[in-house]
């Protein structure tokens, strides 16, 4: 399940900084929302080498 960070203040039912899932966006164009600056893909942090070694 993909998740996105809400950037804009006019996304229905969300505030900036909230997370929105692709399930909540069924029927909507995710590409258009990203293009319009309303949401952005959540960045998944890669594990550090130190964490991998542990």
């Amino acid at each position, binding site marked *: 399940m993909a998740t996105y960070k809400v950037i804009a203040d006019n996304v229905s039912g969300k505030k900036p900084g909230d997370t929105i899932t692709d399930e909540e966006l069924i029927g909507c164009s995710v590409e258009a929302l990203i*293009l319009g600056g309303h949401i952005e893909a959540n960045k998944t942090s890669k594990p550090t080498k130190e964490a991998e070694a542990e």
Partner: protein
Amino acid sequence: MAIYVNKDIQVKVNTVDLTTYVTSVEVVNAVDSVEVTSMSASAVNGHIFTGGLQNNTVTINFNQDFAATKVHATLKGLVGVPTTVVVRPTSAVAAAGTNPDFTVTSALMSEYRPVMGAVGDLATVGAITFSGGLYTETA
């Protein structure tokens, strides 16, 4: 809910609330008329139709705003892309039987005019029409 004057119709396009830019909106729930008239010695002299596919439209007039995340930013990526449009008679009141959400899913905006108007006019995008899709009414 008694009779009322339109002043707070909520409009959400692609889950973005653009209510404060809307100057008029029209939701049309329609179906095609499919002719089923056939030869008959007894039928009356007239065409006979049955309901066909839904042929819904939502037409919205927006004032234009090129600021981030506003009208242009919301609409520019939707040309030729199916989306969802939700219209609620009164935004300040939760959806209910007396204030239902009218939703059209998989509606298509086939054209968008980012700039239009004459000198001295208010900048608008004119009438944007979302066509097709499935119409539902939810409380």
